[in-house]
């Protein structure tokens, strides 16, 4: 088990290196191939009307006039041991892990990410709890009485949930419950400061996001349950004289949920890398909003940073899923 985790972690690190290399390539090699000079590239990293000194400083700091592998090495070195940016009049010390420096905002990327991460984690985890509860419950009840009124209603809501885009449901919820009825606040407060205020502000984004996801989970749970409830071992459980409730939960649901774990890991991993639309709609200053801002400002270092963080979460959640799988299903051997 331990050696499996170590091996998987090493594999995850290698995978992340590949992801950085690809991302790096997109940002640094492709423009070169397209014929951009180092000066033009450097210009992109600064705001409008840069002075020649600024351009020279960016070029020097990112090593744009050096070969690509040198630049990549500098970038990796920065993550591992930090970097120092010499901006002419001032120097900026960027401590490890240094994910780069935005020459537009004059801010380091990593502190931006860490300060925004709690918002994104709060959003993703709260929504995940809601959609798991809602989706699985609806799916199980639907599967136990397929064709019933509840089944049709729940699957109808599920279909609507998948089809309605966040910028519709989210804004509608905001308009109704926050602006008109004034039940929910709109200013994010950290959990550590005021938990009830925290939950109050996040409730609408949680629900809107959960509606979107629980729809898929309800359908997955329903089809999984319909399948497992026909398994031979369900008949065995009933033949033991177990109450139907125990048969469903202990024997049916446990098996039906296994494939859901994979999907759940992926979804949470992706959401932790930033819920772009949700965060924008609800003005939450999370990773996703940072990404949106950086993209529209064409600010490459933060985009690179967010991409890497998102990739990290996806890879990490995949590792968690694999480990979970082995505990859920004893037939999966970790070797």
């Amino acid at each position, binding site marked *: 088990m331990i050696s499996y985790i170590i091996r998987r972690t090493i594999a995850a690190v290698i995978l992340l290196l590949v992801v950085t290399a690809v991302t790096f390539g997109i940002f640094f090699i492709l423009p070169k191939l397209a014929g951009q000079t180092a000066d033009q590239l450097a210009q992109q990293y600064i705001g409008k009307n840069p002075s020649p000194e600024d351009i020279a400083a960016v070029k020097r700091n990112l090593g744009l006039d050096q070969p690509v592998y040198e630049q990549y090495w500098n970038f990796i070195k920065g993550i591992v041991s930090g970097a120092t940016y010499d901006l002419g009049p001032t120097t900026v010390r960027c401590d490890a892990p240094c994910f780069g420096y935005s020459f537009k905002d004059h801010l380091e990327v990593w502190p931006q990410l860490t300060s925004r991460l709690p918002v994104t984690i709060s959003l993703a985890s709260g929504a995940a709890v809601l959609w798991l509860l809602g989706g699985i419950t609806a799916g199980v009840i639907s599967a136990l009485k*397929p064709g019933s009124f509840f089944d049709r209603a729940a699957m109808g809501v599920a279909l609507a949930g998948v089809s309605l885009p966040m910028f519709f449901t989210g804004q509608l919820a905001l308009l109704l419950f926050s602006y008109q009825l004034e039940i929910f606040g709109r200013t994010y407060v950290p959990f550590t400061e005021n938990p009830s205020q925290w939950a109050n502000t996040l409730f609408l984004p949680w629900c809107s996001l959960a509606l979107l996801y629980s729809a898929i989970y309800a359908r997955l749970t329903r089809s999984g349950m319909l399948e497992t409830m026909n398994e031979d*071992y369900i008949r065995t*459980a*009933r*033949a*033991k*004289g177990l109450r139907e409730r125990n048969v469903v939960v202990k024997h049916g649901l446990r*098996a039906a949920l296994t494939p859901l774990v994979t999907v759940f890991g992926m979804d949470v991993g992706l959401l932790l890398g930033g819920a772009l639309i949700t965060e924008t709609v609800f003005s939450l200053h999370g990773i996703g909003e940072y990404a949106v801002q950086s993209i529209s400002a064409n600010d490459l270092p933060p985009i690179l940073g967010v991409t890497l963080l998102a990739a990290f979460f996806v890879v990490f959640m995949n590792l968690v899923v694999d480990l979970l799988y082995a505990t859920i299903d004893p*037939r999966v051997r970790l070797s």
Partner: protein
Amino acid sequence: MTELSKTGAAVGEPVRAQDAPTAFLEVRDLKVHFPTDDGLVKSVDGLSFQLEKGKTLGIVGESGSGKSVTSLAIMGLHRLGARGKNVRMSGEIWLDGKELVGADPDEVRRLRGRDMAMIFQDPLSAMHPYYKVGSQIVEAYRVHHDVSKKVARKRAIELLDRVGIPEPDKRVDGYPHEFSGGMRQRAMIAMALVNNPELLIADEPTTALDVTVQAQILDLIRDLQKEFGSAVVIITHDLGVVAEIADDILVMYGGRCVERGPVDDIFYEPQHPYTWGLLGSMPRIDRAQTDRLIPVKGQPPSLINVPSGCAFNPRCPYADVPKDNITRTERPELREVGGRHFTACHLSQEDRTRIWTEEIAPKL
């Protein structure tokens, strides 16, 4: 009793005390029908039999003859789950003086696993892959006994030991996929016997096992029956299995009983052409190697459109022996042909004896 009115069955009036049978297990005119889009599937259509404690009944028939449906009906397993509403059951099933068809489902649930238990065909799919073998046995025990997990675990180890699993205190923590096929079936038997059930139903218990293991499992069932004194219903398509283990044999065809009687009568004086067919298609060690097996020609009947008259008439080589086309117009009733030996066939006693002694027996 609502199910009864649906099928319009004659039996099933509120049961009076004097109706209660004396046999330990008695099935009376059991009908299990499944409405489908294509029509009503009459899986079991009027089946009756009795079984005493300490005795073994073998139910024999080809696929789709209603053997398994019968066993699940006794266990009350048809009514459960999403499909439960789509089943129509009528008739009576008496277990130790209690009627089960019309009983409250929760009452039947309490009997399930405690008074009657079941062994299934494929122990790999019949055991939950995610739970340890031991904890599945513990679960079966604790449903009906208010004991601690520790006590139940001791009981599970004891049972695993009894069914011949080596190192039971270690194997109790193994998962089903870590057991071999035979060991898994032994564990399944341990799970069924953990509550000392008085009725044990084994649905094709050896079909998924290889031949050497089959004999061991049958020996085990026989030994355990002697020890526990339970009534055993063994369902199989393999006459070899019932020859070894059963006291009585019931031959099913198209959801009905075509012949029933003591094991020796069925093997040495079979009365029904279908039973002859089964015997003819069974490989026997005492038969010359050059002899070919005689298959029963044709296909099993559709349970939606059961052939009129005798359900076996399209495949029966003697369908035209009785006069007036009666085999195709009138369904034969089960008639006693000797001590506790019944058959449902239009052939006259003389014809049956003649055909058996002159045509069938010499070829076997």
